[in-house]
């Protein structure tokens, strides 16, 4: 068997629904299996993926629309890093433009809408957004040997 080529990411394209969440998670889990990174790190990757994917499933497309999400991932730096790219064809939306949630506000008053994206930032080494034509592109980078 040929060694995996770092330059060619594996891709999976599915409908932009919550039902696609588990298949996407299984897909990425399969890609990082060989890196043997700690379980805790895997949970953090799953958390960032869930937050990013749910955001798209809920908000990117008009209700009832037939939207899609394409996820690409590859191991980098000899298996020490995971690179993930998530694309969707929904309305232009930069999740990182929103302010950080106010962690000092009281339980009743705080605005927790931005919590998911805040967690994406916390769980990644790098998280970036760009608009590519009519596509939203979210790029996430994770360290695999230890928690970020």
């Amino acid at each position, binding site marked *: 068997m040929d060694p995996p080529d770092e330059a060619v990411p594996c891709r999976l394209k599915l409908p932009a629904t*919550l039902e696609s*969440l*588990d298949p996407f998670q299984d897909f990425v889990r399969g890609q990082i299996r060989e890196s043997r990174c700690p*379980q*805790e790190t895997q*949970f*953090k990757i*799953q*958390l960032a993926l*869930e*937050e990013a994917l*749910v955001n798209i499933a809920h908000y990117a497309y008009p209700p009832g629309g037939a939207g899609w999400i394409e996820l690409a991932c590859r191991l980098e730096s000899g298996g020490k890093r995971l690179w993930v790219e998530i694309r969707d064809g929904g309305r232009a939306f930069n999740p990182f433009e929103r302010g950080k949630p106010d*962690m*000092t506000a009281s*339980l*009743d008053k705080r605005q*927790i809408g931005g*919590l*998911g994206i*805040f*967690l994406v930032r*916390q769980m990644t080494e790098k998280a970036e957004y760009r608009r590519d034509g009519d596509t939203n592109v979210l790029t996430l980078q994770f360290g695999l040997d230890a*928690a970020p």
Partner: protein
Amino acid sequence: MEIVSMKKENAMLIRLKGRMDVVTSPAFEQACDKVILGGDKLLVLDLGGLEYISSAGLRSILGVDKKIKAQGGKLALCNLMGMVKEVFHVSGFAEMFPTFDTVEAALGST
């Protein structure tokens, strides 16, 4: 996610096991709704068996807290471990709820 609820002397104890994500959180809220309707004033969540939580899980715990407070009761958490503990700390949720190291300590917190 497994949800097991047990009646204790002065409280209701709910043990969670597995993953609390956007798909499984609604079942947790439904289980808690029943407990809250039962009128218990203290609800203890034992998170010792929970290996994963996302913002959907945090939000549903927040929702349960609001409901039980509206009835004059309170929520206590215990046994936060690993990734779950870290997510509670990073998000600031750990400071928003009474948290305990053991079930016994949480049950004695009335």
